[in-house]
């Protein structure tokens, strides 16, 4: 058994990593919908989901069951190839984009096979990511065209035009970072930002603040989120490109949307905010205990909160989860090896979560663009600014060289 594992470790280890990552991402997607509904509800002074489980925590599960058991009718006169292919393309590309993202600094050896946190470590990972994004348009365009409905077609057309326009800005805004790093590998881009003495001061966000602004705006447009969600503007187009989809196929579009939100947040973290690097200088040893400092009070609060509910969840599940979190937090304090291993992923996910929160925050705050505003903003403002950023960065780098 061990012999077999050692021989085929180069195949088995990546497959296991992929399975774990897909499981994590799909769970995070499901709970992202819950977080989004809760946050927007609180922004609008409502309660949000609170019936299914404590704080509506089982709502994603109920939604999932509902999606699976809904009838999946096939609209008349659809183009079958495009109609069935579209959700699969969209979801597949969204999940693939996570494959090249490094989540932490560690390398570890399993059955004699050296590997790291993240699935593939390619030395052109940024280009691969852009290639996958470039193909992402097809899913939405095909869904819009294949469903044989005017709302879908309009949504699909809008989406293709929008994604073509903003892809230019997305690519150009990253050039500044590439000029500084001189490398396409996301891992090297992160490591180039590291400086144990100065912490967050050497992150790319400070020299590249214009680039970051362009990148984040273009990325929101690429993921079709508010305020750029023209392709699915419900007040004009019913639901845009996925009007004719039901059941699990509809859910696949949503999972893909949330997955690409996660991918974009990861990319913003890596390119501009130092990836898994801690924002504090290495000499501030107490910052190593921040994960436990967050976990223990959170776990205790969950225990306290759970006891108030007089049912199975309140009496057993929530206190159980709370105890587990508290124990994990305590273990991190007591075991320095474990604590060191957790540092990288902790900062990475903290930053990614912040970006996801900003996504939701914007959805609760900003109104949608008009279509002509969207186009003129993209072509006449964002694109020139990102080109100017490239020129400016090159000039400064040349200046420093001489």
């Amino acid at each position, binding site marked *: 058994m061990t012999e077999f594992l050692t021989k085929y470790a180069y195949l088995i280890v990546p497959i296991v990593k992929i399975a774990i990552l897909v499981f994590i991402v799909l769970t995070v997607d499901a709970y992202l919908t819950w977080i989004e509904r809760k946050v927007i509800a609180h922004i609008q002074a409502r309660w949000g989901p609170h019936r299914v489980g404590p704080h509506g925590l089982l709502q994603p599960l109920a939604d999932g069951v509902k999606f699976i058991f809904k009838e999946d009718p096939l609209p008349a006169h659809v*183009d079958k*190839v*495009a109609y069935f292919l579209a959700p699969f393309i969209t979801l597949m590309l969204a999940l693939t984009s996570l494959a090249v993202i490094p989540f932490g600094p560690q390398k570890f050896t399993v059955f004699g096979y050296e590997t790291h946190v993240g699935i593939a470590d*390619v*030395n*052109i990972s940024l*280009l*691969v990511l*852009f*290639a996958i*994004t*470039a*193909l992402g*348009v*097809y899913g939405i*365009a*095909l869904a*819009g*065209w294949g469903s044989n409905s005017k709302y879908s*077609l309009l949504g*699909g*057309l809008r989406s*293709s*035009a929008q*994604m*073509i326009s903003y*892809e230019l800005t997305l*690519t150009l805004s990253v050039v500044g970072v590439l000029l500084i790093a*001189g490398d*396409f590998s996301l891992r090297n881009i992160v490591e180039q930002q590291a400086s144990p003495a100065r912490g967050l001061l050497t992150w790319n966000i400070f020299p590249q603040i214009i680039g970051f602004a362009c990148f984040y705006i273009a990325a929101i447009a690429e993921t079709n989120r508010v305020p750029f969600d023209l392709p699915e503007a419900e007040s004009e187009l019913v639901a845009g490109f996925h009007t004719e989809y039901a059941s699990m196929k509809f859910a696949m579009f949503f999972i893909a949307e949330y997955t690409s939100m996660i991918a974009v947040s990861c990319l913003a973290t890596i390119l501009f905010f130092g990836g898994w690097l801690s924002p504090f200088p290495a000499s501030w040893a107490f910052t190593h205990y921040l994960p436990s400092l967050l976990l223990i009070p959170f776990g205790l609060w969950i225990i306290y909160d759970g006891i108030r509910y007089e049912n199975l969840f309140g009496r057993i599940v929530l206190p159980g989860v709370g105890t587990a979190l508290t124990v994990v937090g305590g273990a991190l304090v007591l075991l320095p090896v474990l604590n060191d291993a957790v540092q990288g992923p902790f900062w990475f996910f903290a930053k990614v979560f912040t970006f996801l929160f900003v996504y939701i925050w914007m959805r609760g705050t900003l109104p949608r663009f008009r279509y002509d505003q969207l186009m003129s903003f993209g072509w006449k403002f964002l694109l020139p600014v990102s080109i100017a950023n490239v020129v400016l960065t090159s000039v400064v780098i040349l200046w420093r060289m001489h």
Partner: protein
Amino acid sequence: MSGSLIIFFVLALLAVFAAISLIVQRHPIHSALSLIVVMIALAGLYLLMGAEFVAAVQIIVYGGAIMVLFVFVIMLLNAEEEERTNFSKLATYAGIPLALAVAGFIAAAIASSSGSLPAPESSGALTSTKTLSNLLFSDFVYPFELTSFLILVAILGAIVLAQRET
């Protein structure tokens, strides 16, 4: 049979079948989709030869930008299915012999030179993007700049043509 040879044949077959499907399909969108598959299969072949930058650019530029525009235009014009007509006389009497002749020439060329064809380096070392850009901006800077100029002229031409419409 080594792993890379299997991948090569899978990708090559995929490219050939998608190319045939591109011609045989009657709906423009299905043809465009087949062309996208051809582009992606070609990118895979480039990757197999160690040309990682070219592979990525192949997908970004051809698979992404250009084909999206194709699909966009076909969707915008709402192109219907093509009517299949009888072969024209010219296509039957001139086209088929010509196609056979071209196939024969290519086959002969490959057969006669198979011994002397330099095998691509399969050291597994990928050409770094840095080497590529150094070459592009030092040795090949004039062809590169000329191509950029050509594209600029084409863009200006497109703008002029579009302005005349209104």
